[in-house]
């Protein structure tokens, strides 16, 4: 497996305080990579730097063979790196259908001239949109809600909608920021199978998650952050037995005594 995403020595300081310090890791194509760590470990900040929403102070991000460090979010997305947000984001006053359709713009955006002269390329794209949106709604299980306004959805449905918007953007890699938070058991199960479906469809997944159950079942690789630094990396089982990881989550005594 080749590295789809390479993060090298990524750091950012907020007012002299290092939020993320010298973090490096790689996420492979077709794999699920999880970033875990206690609250405030710098996971979301790391996500923001990778997706272009936060400019890093040092370090590099390479995606699909291109240096995308510090590029604007939409440019990074156009290369196939798409993210969701920790605090659920939707287009509140649009229908579920219209929300998902916006994701399709990641593959093609017509020029003003093409639109005004009514080029067949634009018509074909717009006409084909409907079927693609349907497919994606089926996949995430929101078909019945297609005509509802995004703001009318339940919290769990909105999380699924946000993933649907991301999938419509045809990503090579999708970054999910705590997708399971606030989901009930049923929805969590749906999410796990959705993540596996993405993987099967050749999409690499980068996951930030607190739900250890989910992390342990879906991940190929786990990266552990603590106080902005990477303290461990490896297969899920190996990481869960790592002393420094246990210490980070439960305190130093546990890390040294309990496991030994």
């Amino acid at each position, binding site marked *: 497996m080749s590295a789809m995403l390479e993060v090298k020595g990524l750091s950012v300081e907020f007012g002299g305080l290092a939020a993320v310090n010298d973090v490096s890791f790689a996420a492979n194509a077709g794999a699920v990579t999880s970033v875990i760590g206690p609250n405030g470990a710098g996971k979301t900040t790391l996500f923001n730097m990778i997706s272009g929403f936060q400019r890093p102070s040092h370090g590099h991000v390479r995606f699909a063979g291109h240096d995308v460090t510090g590029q604007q979010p939409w440019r990074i997305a156009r290369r196939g790196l798409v993210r*969701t947000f920790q605090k659920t984001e939707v287009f509140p*006053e649009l229908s579920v259908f219209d929300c998902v359709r916006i994701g399709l713009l990641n593959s093609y955006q017509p020029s003003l001239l093409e639109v005004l002269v009514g080029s067949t390329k634009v018509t074909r794209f717009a006409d084909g949109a409907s079927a693609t949106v349907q497919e994606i709604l089926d996949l995430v299980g929101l078909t019945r809600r297609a005509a509802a306004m995004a703001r009318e959805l339940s919290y769990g449905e909105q999380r699924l909608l946000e993933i649907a918007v991301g999938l419509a953007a045809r990503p090579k890699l999708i970054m999910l920021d705590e997708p399971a938070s606030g989901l009930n058991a049923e929805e969590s199960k749906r999410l796990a199978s959705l993540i596996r479906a993405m993987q099967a469809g050749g999409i690499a997944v980068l996951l930030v998650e607190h739900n250890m159950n989910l992390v342990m079942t879906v991940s190929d690789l786990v990266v552990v952050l603590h106080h902005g630094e990477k303290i461990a990396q490896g297969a899920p089982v190996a990481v869960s037995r790592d002393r420094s990881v246990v210490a980070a989550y439960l305190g130093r005594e546990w890390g040294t005594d309990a496991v030994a």
Partner: protein
Amino acid sequence: MASSSGPNRGSPARTTASIVLAVVLLVCPFVLGEGYQLHLLIVCAIFTMLASSLSLVVGYAGLLSLGHAAFFGIGAYVSALLYLRFGVSMWGGIPAAGIVSAVAACLVGALVLRVRGNRFIITTVAFAEIMRIIVLNSVDITRGQMGLPGIAAPIVHLPGLGTIDFGHKTAFYYVALAGAALCVWTVARIVRSPIGWGLAALRENESLGESVGVSAFRHAMIAFAVGAFFAGIAGSLYAHYFNFVSPDLFLFSYTTTMLVMVVIGGKTTILGPVLGAVIFTLLAEYLRAFDQYRLVILGVILLVSVLTFPKGLVDLGAHFMTRRTS
């Protein structure tokens, strides 16, 4: 409804309604004659262009620009100066006004479209005010507050068919009507296209849009430039219709009028701004009978309609339609 695929789009009833409306608009001069009524319709057409073009920016893109009058004024002065200094007729003035206004929007937009919220609003107001002061003080070119009179409309000689004097209201009405129709058609075409999906993304949630490849800046720029293009053309029509331009065209009160039309009519609808422009042009005229109470009455009507129909007056029509069908 902001969605691009309304259920009755292209339906027989709708097609019939469009044809009837087109015929009514085309025969207006023959029914109304060359008088005051036709004058009002021409003013309606000019304000329709301003409101419709502004709805692209304020409604669809969700950017509260309070500088739209600047592009109206730029268009008017471009047309006036081309005519008075270089003898370029209205036929050259109209496209020139649109293009210069659009180029000005691109230059200003490159700066102001990078900021949002209060900072954006303030900078657009400042832009219009700066333009007004520049025009006011370039006395050598613009004659300052005295304005530029004598901007005539063209007279066209058709071999074998006689002449058409666009200084007459009947002929000018068709030019204004064509301008308004082109503007509304263009706005509709854009908002129903994938560019319109991008505008919705910008309006509803900019960060989410950017995270799936929708450049907020690109879409804001398209709305801003196209909006300015038609505001510029409206300015050109104004200049050749009233034969006079002054720095007052850049006044904030023009922007407020356009904004009221857009909001009252329905800011993310195609017909809303048209309706708003027609209603408020006519109201402002007919309320003249009430003299000093005119603005008070206008204000009350405004307040009541905003409170009753927050989505705009077109919502009223949709209301009746659904009630009848259900």
